[in-house]
């Protein structure tokens, strides 16, 4: 308990804890002291001097934000000297401000300044008279940000925030005196420039000197409307800024209950130009001749297009059976639309051949976590990261792929002193602030994870009680680990020093609350599901599960991949994860949908591709996915799609996959419709339309319903709420979530079985979903792809901050392209030297399946022997190199390990 201090503010006594500042005390009392450089998240600098107040007996005025209270102080916040000082400061700021027109990006800040000036005793005329000259925003030094130096008051908030709360140092103050100014070192991609364009600097700038460039070039928005970001699986709540019907950008939502709480990343904030891009498809297209260019298609009416599709699919269904059809639904469309897609497959096509892109990323999470815990989703929520005292980050690079989650981890480490263990073959950014970085050889996860468990067993760091009471299968696992996974062997396989393995295991075990967070570095392997189970083993062995700030949480990639799985767009489960061979479930669905249900388990998406190649699948309906660019082994995919009798692609842009279609249907995007998305921590979030869809586009919901109706199964819903009600009625884990509750602003997660519950944030609290947690004895096996003399390097693929998936959305924003215009293969400088390569040289990267040419970038991020590329650029299609090796349990491809050759081009 801090000692209490009694002081007097403007004649009113109050008592506050020692250490409170005068500003805090005054605000408690209700006095409004104006501030500019004060930031609630940072240590006070006391440079603007606007908050200066008078204290009896003290010489001059004192800065309220940086002066602590002391016993008996008499503070005056409204004296003549205080007001005169405020006027001087505000006049100085306003005099440099320049005229502020209606469209001025700094209008809101200007109005606050004027209001402070009036409160300081200036008349409206005096304030207006100060507005002279023009402020100029510099727009040439960064693709996304603009700065008006005359409006910068050097409050230091922007770069202090960045340094202290974001871990980057892109900018700072240079020179001194009259030459002192803010130097922004931006315009470079993250790895070089140390700026990830998160936009926090904009949010913290009190004068609007720092703004989004679009506010300067396009002007102030007409309105803003809320939505949920359609990029990654974090599910940030945003306020979309719209002008003339076009979304220009977004601000984050600041409410405490949102996922992101004022944070947003470069894509969410700036990557909205795709919505209004001229290349948007707005007319259905029907193929007229072979080929992959736009002129191989002709524009047709919706009527003609849908009739054609319905006809083709009905024919295949009639002649060859529904199992010859397949639906690849989308992790980008809403829950309602995914539900309808799987209903189309099951009720209309009569097949379980429906899948979504979870297949190629987190299907192993679903399989592995279900096997271990009984439920395939994240066990804890994202806001529990703050409060974990040890975070084990495995195979994930959140500062690029899930930046807002990356920010939460940074905050936990930099401010709450959480320990961080990073397990990744590459030296990702978070490795720089980690306590331990285990730089394992790609593909050796099981060995390493077993090694960690070995340390826990050897050093008696197990949670024996938890193991005894809440798990089964430990003995077999212990035997396996003790028999085959001594640290010498683990070190030999993984290349990680045994001492580091011990250190990492100890940190995790010793934590009060240890959290495992993992990504595709664990799942996209031939033993992806086993990798997940190995993670689960660690949580079970230490008891870091079933309570807040702990658990095992996968970072779901797409905005609605979690939802797509939840509502049954999967071949082996119905909505709500009810099994496709569960008689009771089948009965219920059959009764509701009034059709017999298909009984054979369906094809997984990679099997659909293989099926298309060998004739097992004849018709395919692909919704908002681009497997030609994002599936492994591109040539195989191209052959497969070419072989289909009828390929229908529902899309916003003419993607590579669309170029193979027979029919292309133009769909509306998330900002143009109503629905719900479910993010990576199981939160169901509702969104309303922000702008009208281009004339000619239809929502996925409308298209699917029309198609179903034309195929003899009338499907019609007045609004998405009706679709949700249907799926919620049929899915117990979702049945408590209803639109009325979402409209009212309730924050709901599943499982939420009743309308008076808000859902379980923390899973497996008293019991695991299937009773006891299950240990699995896992065996390390080398990846299918191995290096040899011909292909001596390991290629691992992944994401970049500025771009997303196939790039169809992000490459429509000039600023994002400005930051990262084309792909580069990242090579360790040692390897590069051996190959005679210099920075930006063109390189042939070849695998057993093909080769591509791409410029190189030398970086220590890659260990020797390993190279890295993203899959965001169609011109450098890295998936022409990857192979069709799959995890047998989930049929998820091994993107993370491909043997390649490198040669200077």
């Amino acid at each position, binding site marked *: 308990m801090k000692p209490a201090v009694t002081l007097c503010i403007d004649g009113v006594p109050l008592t506050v804890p020692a250490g409170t500042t005068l500003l805090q005390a005054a605000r408690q009392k209700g006095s409004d002291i104006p501030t500019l450089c004060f930031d609630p998240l940072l240590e006070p600098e006391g440079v603007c001097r606007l908050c200066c107040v008078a204290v009896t007996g003290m010489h001059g005025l004192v800065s309220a934000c940086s002066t602590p209270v002391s016993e008996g102080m008499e503070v005056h916040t409204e004296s003549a000297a205080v007001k005169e000082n405020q006027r001087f400061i505000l006049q100085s700021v306003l005099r440099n401000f320049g005229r502020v027109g209606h469209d001025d990006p700094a209008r809101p800040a200007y109005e606050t300044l004027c209001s402070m000036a009036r409160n300081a005793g200036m008349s409206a005329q005096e304030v207006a008279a100060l507005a002279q000259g023009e402020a100029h925003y510099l727009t040439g030094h960064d693709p996304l940000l603009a700065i008006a130096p005359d409006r910068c008051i050097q409050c230091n908030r922007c*770069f202090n925030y960045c340094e202290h709360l974001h871990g980057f*140092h*892109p*900018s*700072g*103050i*240079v*020179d*001194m005196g009259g030459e002192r100014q803010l*130097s922004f*070192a931006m315009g470079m991609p993250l790895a070089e420039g*140390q700026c990830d364009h998160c936009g926090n600097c904009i949010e913290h700038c009190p004068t609007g000197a720092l703004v989004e460039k679009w506010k300067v070039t396009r002007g102030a928005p007409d309105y803003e409307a809320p939505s949920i970001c359609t990029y990654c699986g974090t599910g940030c709540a945003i306020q979309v800024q719209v002008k003339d019907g076009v979304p220009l950008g977004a601000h984050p939502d600041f409410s405490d209950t949102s996922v992101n709480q004022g944070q947003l990343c470069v894509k969410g904030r700036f990557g909205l130009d795709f919505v209004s891009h001229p290349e948007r498809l707005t007319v259905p297209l029907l193929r007229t001749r072979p080929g992959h260019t736009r002129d191989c298609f002709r524009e047709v009416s919706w009527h003609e297009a849908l009739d054609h599709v319905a006809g083709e699919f009905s024919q295949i269904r009639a002649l060859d059976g529904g199992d010859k059809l397949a639906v690849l639904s989308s992790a980008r469309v809403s829950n309602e639309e995914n539900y309808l897609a799987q209903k189309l497959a099951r009720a209309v096509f009569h097949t379980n051949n429906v899948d979504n892109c979870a297949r190629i990323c987190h299907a192993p999470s679903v399989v592995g976590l279900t096997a271990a815990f009984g439920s395939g989703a994240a066990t804890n929520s994202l806001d529990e990261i703050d409060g974990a005292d040890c975070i084990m980050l495995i195979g994930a690079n959140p500062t690029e792929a899930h930046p807002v989650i990356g920010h939460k981890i940074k905050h936990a480490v930099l401010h709450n002193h959480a320990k961080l263990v990073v397990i990744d073959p590459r030296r990702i950014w978070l490795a720089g602030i980690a306590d331990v970085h285990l730089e394992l050889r790609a593909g050796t996860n099981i060995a390493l994870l077993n090694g960690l468990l070995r340390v826990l067993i050897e050093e008696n760091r197990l949670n024996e009680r938890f193991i005894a009471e809440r798990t089964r299968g430990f003995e077999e696992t212990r035997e396996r680990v003790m028999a085959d996974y001594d640290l010498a062997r683990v070190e030999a396989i993984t290349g990680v020093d045994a001492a580091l393995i011990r250190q990492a295991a100890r940190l995790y075990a010793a934590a009060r609350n240890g959290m495992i967070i993992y990504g595709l570095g664990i799942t996209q392997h031939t033993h992806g599901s086993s990798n997940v189970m190995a993670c689960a083993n660690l949580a079970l062995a230490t008891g870091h599960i079933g309570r807040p700030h702990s658990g095992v949480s996968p970072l779901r990639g797409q905005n609605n991949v979690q939802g797509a799985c939840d509502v049954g767009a999967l071949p082996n489960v119905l909505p709500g994860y009810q099994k496709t061979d569960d008689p009771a479930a089948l009965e219920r669905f059959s009764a509701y949908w009034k059709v017999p249900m298909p009984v054979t388990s369906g094809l997984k998406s990679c099997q659909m591709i293989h099926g298309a190649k060998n004739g097992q699948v004849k018709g395919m309906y692909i919704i908002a996915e681009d497997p030609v660019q994002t599936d492994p082994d591109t040539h195989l995919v191209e052959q497969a799609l070419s072989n289909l009798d009828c390929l229908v692609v529902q899309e916003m842009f003419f993607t590579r996959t669309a170029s193979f279609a027979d029919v292309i249907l133009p769909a509306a995007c998330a900002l143009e419709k109503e629905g719900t998305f479910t993010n990576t921590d199981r939160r169901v979030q509702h969104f309303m339309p922000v702008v009208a869809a281009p004339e000619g586009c239809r929502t996925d919901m409308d298209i699917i319903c029309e198609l179903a109706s034309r195929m003899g199964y009338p499907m019609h819903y007045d609004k998405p709420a009706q679709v949700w009600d249907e799926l919620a009625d049929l899915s117990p884990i979702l049945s408590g979530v209803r639109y009325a509750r979402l409209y009212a602003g309730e924050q709901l997660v599943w499982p939420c079985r009743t309308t008076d519950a808000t859902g379980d944030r923390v899973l497996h609290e008293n019991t695991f979903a299937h009773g006891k947690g299950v240990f699995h004895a896992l065996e390390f096996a080398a990846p299918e792809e191995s290096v040899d003399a011909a292909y001596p390097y390991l290629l691992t693929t992944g994401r970049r901050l500025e771009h997303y998936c196939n790039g169809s959305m992000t490459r429509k924003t000039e600023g994002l392209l400005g930051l990262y215009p084309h792909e580069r293969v990242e090579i360790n400088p040692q390897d590069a030297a051996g190959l005679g390569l210099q920075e930006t040289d063109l390189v042939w990267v070849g695998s057993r399946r093909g080769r591509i040419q791409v410029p190189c970038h030398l970086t220590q991020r890659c260990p020797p022997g390993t190279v890295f590329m993203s899959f965001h650029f169609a011109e450098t299609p890295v998936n022409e190199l990857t192979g069709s090796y799959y995890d047998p349990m989930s049929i998820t491809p091994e993107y993370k390990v491909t043997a390649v050759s490198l040669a200077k081009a």
Partner: protein
Amino acid sequence: MERETIITLERMVAIHAGKPGELLMLAEELMDHFGTIPEAAPALMQQLGLAAGEIQSILSFYHYPVSNTPVRCRVEVCGALSCHLKNSADLLHALCETFSAEPGVIKADSRLLISRSECLSHCDHAPTVSVNGENCAGADLPGLIARIREALS
């Protein structure tokens, strides 16, 4: 920069590795040895545990020159009040005329820099001129010119 110079530079920086508080000490050592902060130095200084932006911020506050060509002869004519009263402005002008230099601009060929400085704390010998760090009484103009010529050769 020549290889040997780079090695020396790297060695000088490495002594302070991991000690961000020693940036200014290092800067002074570099100035003593090289007469300038070599262009490669700021990047190397990150070894001290500072970000590139921080280094730039600190060095720019103190107006450390970052270049690969040190000034061979640095002539500072004190322009503070006591020396101003002893016509230091005239002296600066005279020196610039004599050597065909512009105040504050480095003469490329001879690497001579004549500039006005703030108080050199030698007000008893005003007007004070410092030639490569050595204070001279500016009242003796011919002697001063000779001194400068000597330093340039």
